[in-house]
């Protein structure tokens, strides 16, 4: 795992290169050292040979001197003395050379010193013997002794020389061995080092290769992404642009050209060229915005118009945001969208809204007419009727009295209808605000409104604690008032009304009546009574406007009360359901969304 991670990390390649570099430097150093050693060894061999040659030469010079002396002794010819004299000079030269060659070897120096004294003694001996020969005293015992002594010196010199040569040879042998072991070990080490370097280099190469592969892939993806961006720009009618504020250079995406009604790249990407398309009335606004953008480097949404060469006017919306790229250059990235369709849509919607509002206003005006202007003449008719009944009663015939009574009834009914219709149309949502309200208080207020009937009918009303809800208080009070009023009105004649109000919370998913619910949870308030009830088949019908289950002679009413309840509950995005059983009672369930 760790190895894998190291391999993957980007500094792996760098590390490999550094390591390889060091390895190569190391190899070069080692090679250099090896070659230096090699040449040193050669030098040593030459050195040894040189020493040996000089030593041999000394011996040969001595022999020459000896031979010359012997010749002189035998012949008494002074010609033989020449090599003897030259031999001494040559021996001295060789000595100087040897002294220089063995300057690094104290043992050989010591040997050389001993050799030098031996040679001196031999040469002296040769001179003495020569002197004897010159005086013709060769038959003297002393001459014989001297001659013998010379022979001995010569033996000692030969021994010394051989010893010195053997020392040099031993040295040579030792150095040779050193060199051979050196030469054997170095190539193995170098070879393995080169192999290791190669492995590392290969790993680095593989890594670079795989990176390259990845780069290629992401390049491809980028290419695809770019293409899809292009597509999406075309489909969504937006273009993008970059603005390098410092260099004042622009880049427009292909579709930005299209948004201006032009072919991509058909004009130089400058702000001046862009401005040529902007609607004359918007140029000033946009220019000032652009100037501001230069300073704040953040462009709020701006909507402006452009005119295509074809003469089309389009609405564009632009947004820009300043960013700093990887090279530390500040640039503004922006998108521009063609919102002409949205604006058209919005305008249509706005127009419809205005129409609707107008309709609503007309409806409200109608309501006012109904509430005031229609009520007034009706009220006067009724008042005059009451005066007629009061003062002119005696002047009417029997049928006249009956007609007046009928007119009165009709007028009363009309009043009831107008009042209820008004209440229904007043139950609007538009200008009412939902606010957190104490439902218990609204329920209590509704009961206070009905206090008289409650007392008169000797009704018992039980309530429970209900939590606060977000409602239109006045409407909810009316809702309770209408439902409790309904229960009181349709109470059974043989028993005192008992009305129970209960509350619980329900999940929309747990109640199949709430299959069309928009919210997850609902408050449920149920109002159940022991009144005359109704057939379940009418459970939905009772909420429709003007729908009545009873003849108006039996129970007064216009069939609007429960429609108002339905409307109020609708206003609150809730539901109301009724359940009835004839002569047992009715249950009304109100569901209000829990928000």
């Amino acid at each position, binding site marked *: 795992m760790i190895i894998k991670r190291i391999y993957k990390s980007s500094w792996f390649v760098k590390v490999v290169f550094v390591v390889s570099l060091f390895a190569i430097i190391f190899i070069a150093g080692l090679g250099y050292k090896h070659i230096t050693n090699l040449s040193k060894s050669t030098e040593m061999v030459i050195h040894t040979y040189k020493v040996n040659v000089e030593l041999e030469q000394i011996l040969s010079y001595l022999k020459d001197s000896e031979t010359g002396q012997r010749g002189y002794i035998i012949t008494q010819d002074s010609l033989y003395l020449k090599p003897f004299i030259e031999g001494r000079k040559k021996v001295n030269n060789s000595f100087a050379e040897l002294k220089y060659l063995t300057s690094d070897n104290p043992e050989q120096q010591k040997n050389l010193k001993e050799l030098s004294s031996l040679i001196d003694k031999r040469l002296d001996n040769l001179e003495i013997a020569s002197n004897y020969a010159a005086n013709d005293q060769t038959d003297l015992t002393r001459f014989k002794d001297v001659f013998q002594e010379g022979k001995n010196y010569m033996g000692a010199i030969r021994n010394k020389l051989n010893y010195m040569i053997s020392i040099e040879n031993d040295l040579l042998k030792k150095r040779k061995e050193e060199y051979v072991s050196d030469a054997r070990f170095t190539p193995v080490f170098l070879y393995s080092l080169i192999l290791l370097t190669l492995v590392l280099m290969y790993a680095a190469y593989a890594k670079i290769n795989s990176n390259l592969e990845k780069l290629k892939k992401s390049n491809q993806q980028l290419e695809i992404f770019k293409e899809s961006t292009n597509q999406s720009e075309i489909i969504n009618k937006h273009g993008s642009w970059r603005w390098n504020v410092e260099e004042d250079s622009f880049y427009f995406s292909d579709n930005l050209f299209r948004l201006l009604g032009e072919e991509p790249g058909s004009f130089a990407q400058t702000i001046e060229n862009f401005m040529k398309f902007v609607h004359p009335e918007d140029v000033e606004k946009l220019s000032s915005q652009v100037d501001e953008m230069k300073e704040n480097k953040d462009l709020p949404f701006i909507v402006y118009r452009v005119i295509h060469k074809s003469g089309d006017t389009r609405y564009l919306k632009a947004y820009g945001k300043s960013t700093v790229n990887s090279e530390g250059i500040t640039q503004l990235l922006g998108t521009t969208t063609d919102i002409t369709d949205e604006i058209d849509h919005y305008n249509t919607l706005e127009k419809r809204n205005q129409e609707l509002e107008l309709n609503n206003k007309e409806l409200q005006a109608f309501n006012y007419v109904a*509430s*005031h202007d229609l*009520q*007034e003449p*009706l*009220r*006067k008719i*009724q*008042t005059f009727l*009451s*005066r007629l009944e*009061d003062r002119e009663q005696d002047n009417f015939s029997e049928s006249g009295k009956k007609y007046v009574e009928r007119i009165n009834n009709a*007028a009363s009914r009309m*009043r009831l209808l107008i009042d209820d219709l*008004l209440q229904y149309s*007043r139950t609007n949502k538009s200008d009412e605000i939902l606010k957190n309200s104490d439902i218990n208080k609204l329920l209590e207020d509704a009961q206070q409104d009905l206090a008289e009937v409650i007392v008169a009918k000797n009704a018992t009303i039980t309530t429970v604690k209900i939590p606060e809800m977000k409602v239109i208080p*006045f409407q909810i009070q009316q809702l309770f008032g209408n439902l409790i009023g309904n229960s009181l009105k349709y109470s059974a004649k043989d028993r005192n009304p008992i009305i129970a109000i209960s509350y619980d919370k329900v999940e929309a998913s747990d109640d199949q009546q709430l299959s069309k619910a928009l919210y997850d949870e609902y408050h449920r308030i149920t109002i159940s009574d022991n009144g005359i009830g109704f057939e379940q088949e009418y459970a939905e019908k009772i909420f429709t406007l003007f729908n009545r289950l009873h003849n108006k002679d039996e129970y007064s009413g216009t069939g609007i009360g429960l429609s108002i309840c339905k409307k109020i509950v609708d206003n609150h995005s809730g539901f109301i359901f009724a359940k009835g059983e004839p002569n047992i009672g009715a249950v009304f369930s109100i569901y209000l969304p829990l928000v």
Partner: protein
Amino acid sequence: MATDYTHIILADDDEDDRMFFTDAFDELKMTVKVTTYNDGVYLMDYLNQEDAILPNILFLDLNMPRKSGMECLKEIKENSRFKDVVIAIYSTSASEEDIENTFIKGANIYIKKPSDFKVLKKVLSNVVTTNWQYHTNGLNKDNFLLRL
């Protein structure tokens, strides 16, 4: 007799309603003094005269041309000279909001014009007597609210 000198003013632009109003008091045999004005402007012109005799009870129709009952109410409440005048709104409409609003703005009485003359007589008599009760029994006039 206590109610003899109760001074009453009605401002209403509807001729029939003014007639019903005066007729009702006539029939009630209460010797109250009833004056009527045809709209809010006439009414305020009268009340703003320095030597005007202020009514005990002022009946205001809400929906009047030129100056509505609500505007009159506002002007009257802003002038401390009229602080002792009991104000009764006398209107056709009876939306709960209208009613509460006029009470909040300082009206004492709200009367929905009845559609029965007998009821009208009863209502007016009730207003005058209740007002008298407040007047003579030291009741807190700030709490005087009556809806009929």
